[in-house]
């Protein structure tokens, strides 16, 4: 009824290629961003901001990075946790060794270092594909886990292996409280998400998609697989690296290599697949699902158990949480293998016709 595009004429190529061609979408996204910036910081509690919003946003950023590689370029990676770690430790080393650098530059440099390592570990993708590649990317995961754990230089020889982030000083603005952290992360994520959206719509993004759909055919129509695949690895690792440094600096504050182990990689891959392969908006939904569901289960299970007269201890709750989590993932994959983003677009299609079915 209210979601109609009748009367909205596209009179130029620019209008036709807009990110949100329908006026209602533009209004809706504008509202969401306005609420996120202006309303949420004042309404939400500190707990909600610091343990739900901030990690979800950072995970969404990492998921965008992984989605560029897996969803847009079709190269499955199980090593995204390692690239988060590279971003975090690179930023840490820049911060303590070159303290004059502003924080934003440090975080972006973390992403750049991660991008360079990404290119190196992307080289095998020129030869190997599919699951062989997926397992090969695990090499990155295990190698960097070990490197940051065992080689003291990266952690500045701290005896425990756990390192602390420097004070967050963004051009004079000291980011301290949960609200400030939330606003800082939100700003970075918004800018990078717009960047990602425009990259995947552009020249290089279309090359990635051609490679994903069929690499040999793409090569025949003149796309250089080496350039396309390696740029995908570089851009993807950059996003994941920036997310990693944000995760370490803003969310964790002090961390050890375990924060970026293989579980993180799987979590990101799940976020991408449940959110929707090849969709930027899906990354936010997937990340929210992956982060909030386990928290919800932890809180909701013990009272539910007591309802049926079953006192659960902590281990049982976590095992039960595992079970429900696994079952839900299988359920989601069966019901909608294309993820939440597809559900969302189906809903929009229905809304355009509503209340008449035809």
């Amino acid at each position, binding site marked *: 009824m209210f979601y109609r595009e009748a009367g909205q004429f596209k009179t130029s190529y620019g209008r036709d290629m807009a990110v949100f061609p329908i006026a209602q979408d533009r209004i809706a996204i504008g509202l969401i961003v306005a609420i996120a910036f202006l309303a949420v910081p004042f309404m939400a509690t500190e707990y909600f901001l610091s343990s739900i919003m901030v990690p979800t946003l950072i995970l969404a950023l990492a998921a965008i990075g992984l989605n560029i590689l897996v969803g847009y370029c079709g190269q499955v990676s199980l090593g995204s946790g390692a690239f988060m770690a590279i971003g975090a430790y690179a930023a840490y080393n820049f911060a303590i060794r070159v303290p004059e650098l502003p924080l934003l530059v440090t975080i972006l440099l973390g992403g750049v270092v991660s991008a360079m390592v990404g290119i190196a570990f992307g080289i095998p993708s020129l030869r190997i594909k599919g*699951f062989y590649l997926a*397992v090969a990317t695990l090499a990155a995961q*295990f*190698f960097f886990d070990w490197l940051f754990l*065992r080689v003291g230089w990266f952690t500045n020889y701290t005896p425990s292996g756990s390192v602390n982030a420097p004070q967050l000083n963004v051009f004079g603005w000291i980011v301290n409280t949960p609200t400030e952290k939330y606003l800082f992360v939100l700003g970075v994520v918004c800018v990078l998400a717009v960047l990602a959206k425009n990259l995947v719509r552009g020249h290089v993004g279309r090359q990635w998609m051609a490679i994903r759909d069929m690499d040999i055919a793409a090569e025949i129509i003149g796309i250089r697989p080496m350039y396309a695949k390696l740029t995908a690895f570089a851009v993807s690792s950059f996003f994941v690296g920036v997310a990693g440094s944000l995760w370490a600096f803003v969310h964790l504050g002090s961390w050890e290599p375990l924060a970026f182990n293989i579980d993180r990689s799987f979590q990101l891959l*799940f976020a991408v697949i449940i959110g929707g392969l090849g969709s930027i908006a899906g990354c936010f939904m997937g990340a929210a699902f992956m982060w909030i569901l386990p928290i919800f289960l932890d809180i909701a299970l013990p009272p539910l158990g007591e309802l049926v007269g079953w006192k659960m201890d902590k281990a049982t709750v976590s095992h039960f949480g*595992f*079970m429900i989590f696994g079952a839900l*993932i*299988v359920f989601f994959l069966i019901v909608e293998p294309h993820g939440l983003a597809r559900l969302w677009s189906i809903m929009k299609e229905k809304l355009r016709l509503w209340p008449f079915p035809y």
Partner: protein
Amino acid sequence: MAFFLEVLIGGLLTGVLYSLVALGFVLIFKASGVFNFAQGAMVLMAGLALVQLFEPTYIGLWHFVGVGALSAAVVGLLVLRTVRGGTFAAAKGDWRIHLPKIVAVGAGLLGGVLALAGGAKGWPLWLAIPAAIAVMVAVAWVVERWVLRPLVNQEGIILFMATLGVTFFIDGFSQTLFGSNVYPLNIGLSKDPMFLLEGVFEGGILVNKLDISGGVIAGVLVAGLAVFFQKTRIGRALRAVADDHAAAQSVGIPLNWIWFIVWSVAGVVALVAAIVWGSKLGIQFSLTFLALKALPVLILGGFTSVPGAIVGGLLIGAGEKVAEVYFPVVTKFLTGTAMPGGVEYWFAYVLALLFLLFRPQGLFGERIIERV
């Protein structure tokens, strides 16, 4: 030299155990194209079921009754299927259409009552092992019916993620049901060290008897699987399905039944792996990480090759032990500073990665041919 051989042999024997886990992967990948990450969780589940039935520390009477009923029902249904054949079709209204339900309930009741009579004490090995197998068969049935069948024709990555979901589920389920501590498994495999070649080297080469028996068990299992694949009717059907799903289905091979069989066989392989690893380390949650150790073995050997899984396991096992011992020495020689140890953690993956650069399909994998 003796020390080097000792490291090498120790590595080779560990490698055999890696191959055991990799075997389960290969079986399922060949038959259904599913990259089954849940193999490690299946090892854990099989191990927990066995150790709790054999030497119960966590479970009570009702667990025994449940497992007894389940095992009897599984056995009953399998016997019924063997007697009647898979293609039996009863007319509507014919009472025989309910025969599977009747058999399952009847056998289940019988098994439950027998277990109840036996009480809450451990079962002997000849009963505990088949019961653990029955549990794994039930898992195979559930996975085939509720996960694989609804997801048929999906892309490989989706199926892979589904098996990750299954991994979470099995991890949680088996630990809720059978406990989550470390349970030592002692089924009579000797753990004593022994010395080989004492005449050749001074002091001989130290090996653990348990590793040797693990190697022997793995050998027997592989030989058994080879006979099963080459000589039996089901084995031929499995190979046909592995070759070409559509063609196999069009000559009348029931795909769903084959998938069920192959997941059951993978469950049996998981049980064997659990027995050998469990005797070595105890049955515990860390057994699921074996799946991660089996992955480089797989890409080295090729996803579709049983001999590849064996040779890959041996190479990785030996390579990583030798690297673990000699990496600090070699880096000290080359660069002047000894690099830290713990190389075991990533060596297998980097070895497999470098290998793939030269031979993308693994050692024994089928040549990858692509057409546009």
